[in-house]
């Protein structure tokens, strides 16, 4: 049995060597699916610590990016023992940087933290037209739509996307969160989103609140 507490702590400290070392040892013991799930949970708890330290200004954006990378590496090691059933998803999110904006660093941080928290994330990429959001929402029926943008012009595109979801009769089936440098409470209201954030960790908490 792996030392779950040590693992959680090492993830929280972003100690890559230690995390990957512990996981390799664990995988070598040929663990069962249930046991592996506990290890995944321990990693997720470590990511929650990372989020808290970010909110306390002990970690910064660069650390969040590394945390996402660390988690990807961790899951890669665990894959062979995760089994086909893998983990139960807590919810699903259709995510993208809106039309006219090519920035994706913030979106990618949110994505990796949301995945770490157990969400299924459908990432549509950058410069995503409203129609593409609508099509994907129709197809996968997510609980949440996440829109990201860095430029102020992204706010217009976010509004267009919300309007397109309304037109397609999908607005009431999803919660909408917007994120990125230009979003504010005012903008959120005008756009018709449910919540806004400029902090990926907070964004994930908001989503968790919605799927409880």
């Amino acid at each position, binding site marked *: 049995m792996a030392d779950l507490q040590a693992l959680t702590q090492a993830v929280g400290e972003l100690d890559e060597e230690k995390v990957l070392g512990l996981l390799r040892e664990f995988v070598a013991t040929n663990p069962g699916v249930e046991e592996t799930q506990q290890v995944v949970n321990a990693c997720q708890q470590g990511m929650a610590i990372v989020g808290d330290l970010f909110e306390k200004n002990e970690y*910064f954006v660069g650390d969040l990016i590394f945390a996402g*990378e660390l988690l990807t590496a961790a899951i890669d090691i665990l894959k062979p023992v995760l089994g086909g059933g893998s983990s139960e998803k807590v919810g699903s999110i259709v995510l993208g940087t809106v039309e006219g904006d090519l*920035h994706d660093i913030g979106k990618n941080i949110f994505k990796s933290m949301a995945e770490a928290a157990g969400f299924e994330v459908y990432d549509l990429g950058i410069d995503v037209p409203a129609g593409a959001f609508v099509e994907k929402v129709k197809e996968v029926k997510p609980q949440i739509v996440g829109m990201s943008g860095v430029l102020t012009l992204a706010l217009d595109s976010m509004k267009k996307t919300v309007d397109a979801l309304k037109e397609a009769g999908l607005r009431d089936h999803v919660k909408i969160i917007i994120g990125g440098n230009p979003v504010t409470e005012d903008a959120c209201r005008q756009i018709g989103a449910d919540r806004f954030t400029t902090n990926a960790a907070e964004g994930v908490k908001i989503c968790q609140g919605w799927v409880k």
Partner: protein
Amino acid sequence: MTDVAALARERTQLFHDVLDGKIPKRVPVFASFPVEFCIQYAGKDLVEVQWNHEMLEEVFDKVCRDFYSDMLPVNAFRLPSFYKLLGARNFVMSSGGFLQHPEVEGMAPEDYDDFIASPYNCIVEKILPRIYSELNTDLNTKAIAFAKAFKAFYDEMGYLGMLYGKLTQKYGYAVVNLFAGFTEAPFDFMSDQLRGFKGISIDVRRIPEKVEAAVEAALPLLIKAGTPPVVNKNDSTFIPLHMAPYLRGKDFERFYWPTFKKLVEALAERGLSSYLFVEQDWMRYLDYLYELPENTRMRFEYGDPKLVKEKLGKKHIISGFYPVSLLKTGTKQQCIDKAKELLGILAPGGRYFFDFDKVPVTLDSINVDNARAVLEYVAANADY
């Protein structure tokens, strides 16, 4: 004409005084509007004008006519032609006509040793072909692509230089060039152009010694890049700062600060002040900024203007802090009150010129009436 010449002299004197650390007659105003804003303001098509620089004269003229500034308030920092000719992946026009900088990784983690041994060779031989698809080919084709792009670059920049001069004369703007040179802090250069935000964030943790050696290796190139051929009085080199707010303090101290400080000092030795765009919030780093050579110009985006005035106001030249977002959401009176408040904090003792916290990139990111009102208010109400 003589009136305009006298106006230009007076305005130039305002900036010289401020930049020399003397108290000027009044707080000078430097509003700056990027090309995209100007095109939209003139009611023209973004893509069309960015591809036809002759159309910029009318576009820029309208902004100069309608917004108060003591220094030329317009610029086109980048145009698509030369990037497109190179097949650039680091500057790309979006569907809406905005040239943007997507995350690129021109340098792989395995390239560090080569880069450290010879940054210039590594950039030319390995990195440029990855960032610019037209350079990823045989030698002759590459040479032609390069020549075409530079021809376009010099045509565009030559035209713009002529236009800036013409508008400066026409409107009697101060003759001081804050953008005489352009460079980046070594860590920002490694991040923005070579490894990407993600790549560098990982490298800092996985291969810290290499990152440290790489920024040292890049420093001489960046000093050279930031040194213009001719230096006039009070010209400066523009250095937009990027990554520091996203780093932990101890990473900043190790990877960012040492070579950035050396860069600013080296430029100062060549008679150039640095004009820093202090992007995001640098309040954690004010004691470091204090250490830079006297009269370094710093345009702040976010943070506490009082704290900045207190810590840096006697040594450096401050600008910025005026929230562009307020110009969108505030009433005219709220906008003017904000200007009053900032003047009250930042103007005493000089070493301050008025500027927004960042440029408004699109027309609808501000209410233009508010912007005009604020600029006119400051121009008329900030005598010493």
